[in-house]
């Protein structure tokens, strides 16, 4: 019995406190790391830095959340990194062209975002059809889409240059905060008080980046879907046993098409937001490995590539873990290539824990 072998390997982790630690190892590791960086890195333990970490992790949150659904079904979606870039470049191009054509910035922004999001449904839908109708393994199907989306992105961007010319208000929205506090004087929402000049905005306490609102919103909706709805239950069932799901009358093919489409759509949201964060349309640089980092976060968060396991909360912890690792190493002044080693080690721990505790929930 594999379970008994597993039990023998557990030792301390067989006890109740041991199991709790094993179950929440990513969280424990996160806390531990935060403590170490707080002592070792001046400026790490600081509200501004924490907000910065979360703000910069917005894309990672969304990509990893998208990947979570696919991985729970037992598949993998490696196209999302380039769907992300496609969405970003397309949004920025549309914004620029519509504004140039004389459309009001507000309208141009809204229409560009909606069109880009709609377009992003397509690669996901095609992935889903390839995986279900044509029985192409998900890795291969989404690998093809990875290339197609990269090519389409470069075509739209006209080469390896970021797309400029989006309305100026875009990056203001993307980098705004929920609260602007001038201690003892004023509190405003979403914009700084008028009497403060642009240059001196740093003297204000700016709390809760709007980007975090987006991340939390998307993660809550997706988490709810996964945990409390029929759709979510079927997602786990398909990952647990494709056969059982088919025989229980679940329309597995339709479900998977929706999952891959959803995955690309959420990656599309990430791309649109990227324009708001940076003010430009960024193609995905080769070697950015967004999709692989998303997979890493999902697995660190407790999912198994065999399917049937994982969740949005775990994934969010995985994303934060990787983000804190990057940020902390940077602040401590450790060369950036160590972070790859760090992510690799975390991933290895996750896989080993999954192996030793196959039944851990």
């Amino acid at each position: 019995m594999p379970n008994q072998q597993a039990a023998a390997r557990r030792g301390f982790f067989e006890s109740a406190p041991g199991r709790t630690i094993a179950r929440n190892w990513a969280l424990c590791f996160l806390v531990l790391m935060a403590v170490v960086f707080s002592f070792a890195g001046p400026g790490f333990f600081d509200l501004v830095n924490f907000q910065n970490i979360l703000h910069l992790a917005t894309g990672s949150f969304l990509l990893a959340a998208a990947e979570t659904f696919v991985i729970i079904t037992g598949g993998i979606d490696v196209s999302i990194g380039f769907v992300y870039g496609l969405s970003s470049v397309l949004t920025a191009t549309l914004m620029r062209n519509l504004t140039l054509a004389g459309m009001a910035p507000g309208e141009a922004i809204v229409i560009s975002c909606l069109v880009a999001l709609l377009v992003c449904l397509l690669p996901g839908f095609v992935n889903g059809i390839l995986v279900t109708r044509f029985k192409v393994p998900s890795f291969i199907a989404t690998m093809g889409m990875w290339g197609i989306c990269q090519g389409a992105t470069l075509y739209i961007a006209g080469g390896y240059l970021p797309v400029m010319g989006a309305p100026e208000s875009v990056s203001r929205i993307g980098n705004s905060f929920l609260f602007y506090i001038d201690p003892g004087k004023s509190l405003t929402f979403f914009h700084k008080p008028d009497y403060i000049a642009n240059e001196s905005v740093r003297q204000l306490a700016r709390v809760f980046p709007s980007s975090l609102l987006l991340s939390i919103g998307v993660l809550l909706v997706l988490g709810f879907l996964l945990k409390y709805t029929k759709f979510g239950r079927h997602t786990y069932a398909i990952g647990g046993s494709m056969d059982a799901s088919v025989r229980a009358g679940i329309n597995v093919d339709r479900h998977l098409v929706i999952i891959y489409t959803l995955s690309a759509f959420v990656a599309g949201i990430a791309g649109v937001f990227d324009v708001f964060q940076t003010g430009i349309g960024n193609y995905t640089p080769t070697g950015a490995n967004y999709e692989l980092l998303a997979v890493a976060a999902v697995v660190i968060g407790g999912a198994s590539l065999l399917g049937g396991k994982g969740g949005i909360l775990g994934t969010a912890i995985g994303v934060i873990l990787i983000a804190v690792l990057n940020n902390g190493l940077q602040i401590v002044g450790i060369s950036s290539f160590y972070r790859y080693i760090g992510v690799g080690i975390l991933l290895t721990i996750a896989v080993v824990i999954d192996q030793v505790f196959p039944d851990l929930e």
Partner: protein
Amino acid sequence: MAYLLETKGITKRFGGLTAVDRVDMGVEAGEVVALLGDNGAGKSTLVKMISGVYKPDEGDIFLDGKKIEITSPIDALAHGIETIYQDLALAENLNVFSNIFLGREKTKKALGIFNVLDHGYMEEESQKVLDRVDIKIPSLKANIRNLSGGQRQAVAISRSIYWDAKVLIMDEPTAALGIAEQRKVLDMVKSLKKHGIAIIIISHQMYDVFEVADRVIVMRRGIKAGERLVKDTSSEEVVGLIVGAEEVGKK
């Protein structure tokens, strides 16, 4: 009595191999038919056509005398044809009540707009049906992965009867079980029979057959090799049909 479920000339080919060759068979309400035959004789393929996993290449299926089209497992379920597969087809990563309700989850309204899973209802109903087959499972929140073979079998059976099976198909229900659990499963079969369910049971164990079945149908290399009432036959005769001894004898 007329058959509740009947196949006429049903055939399934896999490439050049005819796995099931023009088989006529039927089962009455409240009757247990045992399907016997060597490995590869075509038993599983035959029942998979009835349960909608495979589409027959030829032949028809009748329910209550009316021809029905079964093109997917959903069709079969809609007709009250429930199947418990050899591998049980449970999602091991889900708990007991999620499996009993798999594909047919009960939902309730949250905040008046969202349909959310009604865990409480599903757990209570699952408990009731498990009580009916007299099986104890410590917690219905336990994942299937952590249950014994007999408990899994009970979950699979409970799922079928909860959904008002008219016809219950069981593929090797006792194969992976200990002696005590085998007894339990056979008792369940007897009680389902009393409820008027038509049962087709595939088994290798002669003991099972003579314990619960009314009739045996023997398959050999895709064809129906014979059919006997249990009360009129012996295990020697049945074994003879399975291995084709009487044919050899004739030559």
